[in-house]
């Protein structure tokens, strides 16, 4: 039997201060980069045109364009503010013209693609450049998408809270939801650090991360619930540590198989899906991290802060009493 991390006895709860500092530092770096971009008057979040509205074109050239050639052609066509980016290969580029200011109000931007294409074909000839992908999104669509995605996430949190309150206890629910919110925040910090393009696919990735992290936390909490039912003289802290240790091989194994999938996507699935793959790769890491280091410590803190009433949940009450007794002895 090949085993990793079997029969471990790490004190995960003990290092909670360090983990809080690490997490906050990570989020602070992400926030710091937003501030730096704000000061430099650059876009803080790299929203895709699905959200900002605008025109996106993916171009393939017969010959890789030289230096600032492409920029010059676009400026000539009146798109000096367009963003130009190499896309995976030296002969492939994306051009992005976001809707801005008065243009956004009139929403006549859907002819941009045609104008840009005409200018490019004039310069490179009709064989020299092909438009592999073109997108235009009006301004209203983006706002709505952003709002809907946010509403969906918040409602799913509420539903999870209720389910866990029914199946476990509200304290478990709150701890799980906060741990999951932690993952959402660190993932967003990661996205700003990498300046990844936030498209609907990336939103879907964030949602997957939420699902994955919740899953991970619930499996540990399930073990906590089970261990609390056993008649052991053990403090709540020890129960939590034991439960995390017992489920550790599973946490790592599932992380490994999921990582295998995200790394494959990162390596082979190409540019279009790359931001999604990055977010997932980071997200399953932070999801595993939070269920091991954050959720347990948080639950312990909540149990202290809002202690249970007399007679409620015997297992937890006993564990808490045991905890106090041990402290007194110590």
């Amino acid at each position, binding site marked *: 039997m090949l085993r990793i991390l079997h029969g471990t006895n790490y004190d995960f709860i003990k290092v909670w201060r360090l983990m809080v500092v690490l997490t906050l530092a990570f989020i602070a770096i992400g926030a710091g980069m937003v501030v730096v971009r704000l000061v430099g008057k650059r876009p803080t979040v790299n929203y895709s045109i699905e959200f900002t509205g605008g025109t996106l074109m993916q171009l393939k050239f017969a010959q890789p364009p030289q230096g600032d050639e492409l920029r010059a052609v676009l400026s000539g066509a009146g798109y000096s503010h367009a963003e130009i980016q190499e896309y995976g290969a030296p002969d492939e580029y994306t051009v992005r013209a976001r809707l801005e200011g008065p243009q956004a109000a009139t929403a006549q931007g859907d002819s941009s693609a045609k104008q840009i294409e005409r200018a490019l074909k004039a310069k490179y000839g009709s064989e020299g450049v*092909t438009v592999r992908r073109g997108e235009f999104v009006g301004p209203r669509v983006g706002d*709505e998408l952003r709002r809907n995605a946010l509403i969906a996430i918040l409602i799913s949190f509420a539903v999870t809270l209720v389910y866990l309150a029914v199946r476990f206890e509200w304290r478990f629910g709150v701890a799980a939801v906060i741990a999951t919110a932690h993952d959402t925040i660190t993932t967003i910090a990661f996205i700003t650090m990498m300046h990844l393009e936030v498209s609907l*696919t990336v939103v879907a990735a964030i949602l*997957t991360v939420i699902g994955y992290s*919740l*899953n991970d936390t619930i499996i540990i909490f399930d073990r906590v619930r089970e261990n609390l039912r056993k008649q052991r003289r053990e403090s709540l802290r020890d129960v939590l540590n034991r439960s995390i240790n017992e489920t550790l091989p599973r946490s790592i194994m599932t992380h490994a198989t999921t990582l295998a999938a995200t790394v*494959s996507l990162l390596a082979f699935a190409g540019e279009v899906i790359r931001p999604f*793959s990055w977010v997932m790769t980071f997200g399953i890491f932070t999801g595993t991290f939070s269920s091991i280091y954050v959720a347990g410590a948080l639950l312990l803190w909540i149990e202290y802060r809002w202690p249970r009433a007399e007679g409620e949940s015997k297992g937890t009450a006993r564990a808490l009493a045991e905890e106090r007794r041990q402290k007194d002895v110590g």
Partner: protein
Amino acid sequence: MSNLRNRLLGILLLSAVAAWALFPRNRTVRQRGADGVLRESVERHVPLRLGLDLQGGMHLTLEVDESKQTVADKSEAIDRALKTVRNRIEGFGVSEPVIQKVGTDRIIVELPGMADQERARQVVQDQAFLEFKITDKTGALERVLPRLDAIIKERKLAPATASTVTPSVSRGLEGLLKAADTGKQDTSKKAGAKKDTTRADSLAASGGALSNLIQQGGMPGEYLIESSMVPRVTAFLEDSAVRAAFPPAKSLQWGTDSTAIAGKTYRMLYVLDSRAIMTGEYLTDARPNTSPLEGTIVQFELNNVGGRRFRSETGKHVNDYMAIVLDGRVMGRPPVIQSAISTNGQITMGGKDLAAAQDLALVLRAGALPVPLRVAEVRNIGPSLGQDSIDKGVRASLLALVLIVVVMVVYYKLSGLLAVTALTFYALFTLAILAFFGAVLTLPGIAGFVLSIGIAVDANVLIFERIREELDRGKTVRTAIDEGFRHAMPAIIDSNVSTILTAAVLYQYGTGPVKGFAVTLIAGIVASLVSAIFIVRTFFMVWLQRKRGLETLSI
């Protein structure tokens, strides 16, 4: 034993249903064609169609355009527009188009393999509101021009440079032609001005910002504007005060044609009676054609009611000019009505080609859009990119699969192999559920699926770890397996139910891709529960059956 046989039968049945759901088959579809006749056609129905990003094509989102007028009941308007758009697309000859209402105020149109996006957009978006109007012969514009000039001056609409522009004396078409002939601009200009009718004189006399730009055309109600001045004139005419000052019984409409006189091009502007003598709603047929004299034309036919009305109206207007107005544009130059017209008529397309005539005929036949639509979103993906994405998706999936198999088999040995075998069923079930929901395979969908394979083994990992714990406690192989499955259950149920709940919320409140993602997630969870719990359990039972008295488990 019989329990085991039932389980194996169950797996077989599930697989058969799943395989059936994924098999392409022919379906007979009854559909009303563009001409209104019900027809039966056999369609090849392929489950899990490739999305546009994989097969190439065009995606359009249309919404009600309220820039000109507000629409009270958008949902109802969209319903009616949907019918028209569908009729038009069906006449367009694209295989498996998708035309759907989304939410209350949007239509999405998907045209697989569509390459000419401008043309597609036009066919979908053109409102095709056809009207026949009589050109003004009362000199309404001339009468109101001084007032319009005054308004423009008062509201400072004219740019500062306008005053420094040498006031060109407005002349009739004859004057212009003469100028071109003689080449003596200055003298003929004055001569032309003098020779002109009182109407033309009044145009020039006011000398205002607008009247300087407008010249008399060749028929009553027709005016010429120099092409470079068109945007400025448009701006003048769209001003609210100017619009209010214009007589309500008359309307101003641009023509599609332009003429070149003396090296300059001029756009036509028409003053028309606001009341239409006929509209496109009585139209029963429209066909493109070419005529040696007029170039490409669209011939149309009206129904009996429309024909009667048309005859009486045109009878009243013999010798008047009738403008054919499509979506607010006067098509060609208005012909003179020589005698009453009844059911047949034609629209001259000017210099446009036959394809344009075909498209016009198509949109006229399909009927007008009840509300103007505007493009809210366009995506078009070239076929080469689609193939590229498929290749990449397949490569990534294969690598992921190999890695997962290696991890599972190395770590869990034979049991891992069982779990991996169950993954085949997992993949089959997930795809079948997606096909059942009519899902479309997109690149993010493939990525999600690859990812779900990694997550799908989770339930097995949970169970196997439990079995190991039970074995550690010295239980026999048989009880360890039983207990392992039993103890792992609450965790599996709770974690998956909460994920399903999350997914259900996303499905309910999400839009487009988020919704698609939710379906994939739910399908994946259900399939993974069936494969990890039911199928792997059955495998273990078969294994134990074969090797009675098994002392060690390869796990």
